[in-house]
């Protein structure tokens, strides 16, 4: 043991970042100093344990809340422009973007503003492509509709008008567009379930209430944009 310990250099030594001369001097010191040798061994143990720490995940599934939040970002875009372009080569390309939250809102809006899911289906009419049979069947929609009274009034009339436009022009959509809608309705159904799961877990959440409110607002904004671009009008 020497009078002066040199523990300050031990981390750099273990990292291999000392110069050769410093390294040799430290090794010579450690060979003579019991205390520094002990510290060096303990630091080695700490580093070795750090490299082998096992990972473990969260105790609860965080996905439902993440899913609700990313719906809220409006970042999920389903681009229908190519499919709408199928309707006529050479025609001006029309770009209509359906976002997941907007389509989620569409599913919710159908249930809420039509008074009943079946009535909503009737308004759209039977169709052999299966699209309309998907969204309203989600039991989660009915659960949300129970809470919609306080959220709906601001958007109800405009959504009815815009949904009417969609219903009127729906058969003009190309098969490719229909397929995209169908595929993405699967995503929407899932998003609805996840949003509801989050709500069921935390029914008093102001964040989730605000999320629904924003979804309705975006639904209106989106439908206005889509109808304007597609040239639909009353």
């Amino acid at each position, binding site marked *: 043991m020497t009078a002066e310990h040199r523990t300050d250099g031990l981390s750099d030594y273990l990292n291999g970042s000392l110069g050769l001369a410093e390294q040799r001097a430290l090794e010579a010191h450690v060979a003579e100093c019991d205390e520094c040798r002990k510290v060096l061994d303990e630091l080695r*143990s700490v580093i070795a344990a*750090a490299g082998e720490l096992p990972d*473990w995940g969260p105790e609860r599934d965080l996905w439902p809340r993440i899913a609700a939040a*990313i719906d809220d970002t409006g970042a999920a875009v389903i681009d229908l422009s190519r499919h709408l372009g199928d309707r006529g080569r050479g025609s001006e390309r029309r770009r209509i973007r359906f*976002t997941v939250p907007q389509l989620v809102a569409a599913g919710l809006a159908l249930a809420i503003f039509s008074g009943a899911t079946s009535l909503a289906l009737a308004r759209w009419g039977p169709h052999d492509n299966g699209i309309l049979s998907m969204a309203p069947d989600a039991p989660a929609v009915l659960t949300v509709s129970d809470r919609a009274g306080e959220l709906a009034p601001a958007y109800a009339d405009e959504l009815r008008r815009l949904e009417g436009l969609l219903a009127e022009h729906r058969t003009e959509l190309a098969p490719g567009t229909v397929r995209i809608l169908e595929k*993405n309705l699967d*995503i929407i159904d*899932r998003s609805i379930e996840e949003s509801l799961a989050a709500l069921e877990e935390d029914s008093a959440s102001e964040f989730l209430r605000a999320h629904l409110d924003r979804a309705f607002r975006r639904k209106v904004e989106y439908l206005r944009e889509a109808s304007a671009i597609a040239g639909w009008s009353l």
Partner: protein
Amino acid sequence: MQPETQDVTLALRGDTVAFERLYRSTVTRIHSLARRMGGDDIAEDLTQEVYIRAWQKLETFRGDAAFGTWLHRLAVNLILSRRETIRRREARQVSGSGRLESIAGRSSTPGLKMDLEAALTRLPDGARQVFVLYDVEGYSHEEIGRMMGSSAGTSKSQLHRARMLLREFLS
């Protein structure tokens, strides 16, 4: 195309199911990072925030690294940007005993590794973050300095401090 790359492509088109697959394949590592750097009681919030941010920033992922690597870097940056929150939270805690109990109750990791997990929670946040980034996650001092807005030298001294404290806690 690798399944992960395919899922990123789908997620970029708005497919939340594909993004969920990415979440499930990476969440254990991200949550562990968040827990070690931010603390057990804030780890879930940080983890959620990482994935929300990843979703928002997905179009900046260019595929020149694995998705997990990109996500990990994003997580580190986000957690470091929350240092002030983490500091305030730690200031409210009394000597970290609650966190130690929490970790001890959650893991079945035996011996020194478990002790180390618990001892990590007793480190000052700067030293802990450098230790996690260097000794657990394998970042260089230069990278850590850049990410933390400091120098490689500061990272080195924080690392040494962390290791010495951990050695002390574990003795």
